[in-house]
């Protein structure tokens, strides 16, 4: 089994983690009119990067969401940080 580092709990078994989505995809400003294209982009479209990918994950045992940067080819973890932290 692979181990993923939770920023709050440390290294834990991969089965405790759930992929939530790509990071850096803010919800459109719903106080303004939003085009169908923009909604589709937000809801469905993604970079699906080959190589380094910034993603939001949840550690299901502590229920904390965090950002993990991962190499999608080798599965190596390149870094994790809590959602409110800005990476150095």
């Amino acid at each position, binding site marked *: *089994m*692979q181990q993923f580092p939770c920023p709050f709990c440390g290294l834990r078994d*991969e*089965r405790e983690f*759930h*992929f939530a989505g790509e990071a850096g995809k803010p919800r459109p400003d719903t106080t303004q009119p939003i085009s*169908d*294209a923009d*909604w*589709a*982009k937000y*809801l*469905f*479209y*993604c*970079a*699906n*990067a*080959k190589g380094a*990918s910034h993603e939001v994950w949840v550690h299901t045992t502590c229920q904390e969401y965090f950002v993990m940067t991962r190499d*999608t*080819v*080798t*599965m190596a973890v390149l870094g994790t940080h809590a959602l409110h932290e800005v990476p150095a």
Partner: protein
Amino acid sequence: MTRHFSTFSVIREGLKGHTGWAPLWRSPAPKDAYDIIIVGGGGHGLATAYYLAKNHGLKNIAVIEKGWLGGGNTGRNTTVIRSNYFYPESTALYDLSVRLYEGLSKDINYNVMFSQRGMMVLAHSDAEMEMAARTVNAMQLGGADAELLDARAVQKKAPVLNFRDDARYPIHGAIFQGRGGTGRHDAVAWGYARAADRLGVDIIQNCEVSGFLIEGGVCKGVETSQGLIKAGRVGVATAGHSSDLAAMGGYKLPLHSYALQAFVTEAIKPFMDTVAFSPMTGSYFSQSDKGGLVIGGGLDRIPSYGQRGNVPVQETVLSGIIDMAPALAKVKLLRHWAGIVDVSPDSSPLIGPSGTDGIFINCGWGTGGFKAIPAGGYLFAHLLATGTHHDISRPFDPDRFQTGHLIDEASGSGIAH
């Protein structure tokens, strides 16, 4: 040189020591320009080239493949062919594929070994039996064959399945599609390649696309490891790597790439002559002509481009198989591998313009691309030749993510991809 396969040519070549067989396809150097270039020499790409030449009379076509023909998902899947979907749009698409498969060996003069041994989707409770009846009705309304089997009929067809009293998932019945079955995956790639080559299509292997030539917002060709090749239109059929090509071509796709794992056991005596799938565990298996059991299951849990397996999904798939057929607990695995599949938000494929003029896409088949090869090629060829959709591919245009006309087979037929 003997090109056509027939009883007569086999006997004649046998008498001559099999020295006169022509290679199945040429390996030409790429020309400077083609009318249509297809990126990806898997089943969909090769079928597209074949139908472009056969149905639309186009001659100046190239298929560009970064590795070898059928070296991606076409050679990695579990070879199941079926059209047991829920929505009429899906049934029209996948049943076109089954119909084309039924005539394919004759059409391309190459035995793709399509064995219509039937496919069973098991139901494990009374509620699931009601949903199974709904699917059977939907399939029949859509024009596909479907039968609702009770437990006794399932046991007659596949006595090796788990009918014990203490079964975790007792079998109440199944959706049976008798025209479904399995094919020989390599033969589909090789057969389409050979047939396309004979109609003048250039198949260029070991030629990796590194970028698109875009002039004034319009794609005019592809940059490759064998130099720049110009094209009137470019069709991209690269399955799990479609998003990678999209980044090069300046368009975006609503896809996630996942590894999908498969397994083959050691060869055993004839054990089961149909395909059985249990939606409860996501596992399914069939027996190949060689005797090995071909086993598949659900997607990996995490998006990835790594073409290899991992333990958590292996455990899920194999424990599901043992639950379905406990006699398999001691059978040894011979091989295990993974391919990268591209999964769309509504679990239905994408056929249409890419968003960059001159580039068209055929992707998003998820875990079920193999069964759709003939239809994918047929419809993509229509799109590339005419610039407009065939009626059957129209609902699968990527514009459905803006209009909201999703074809949600994940909830419709409970199929994972």
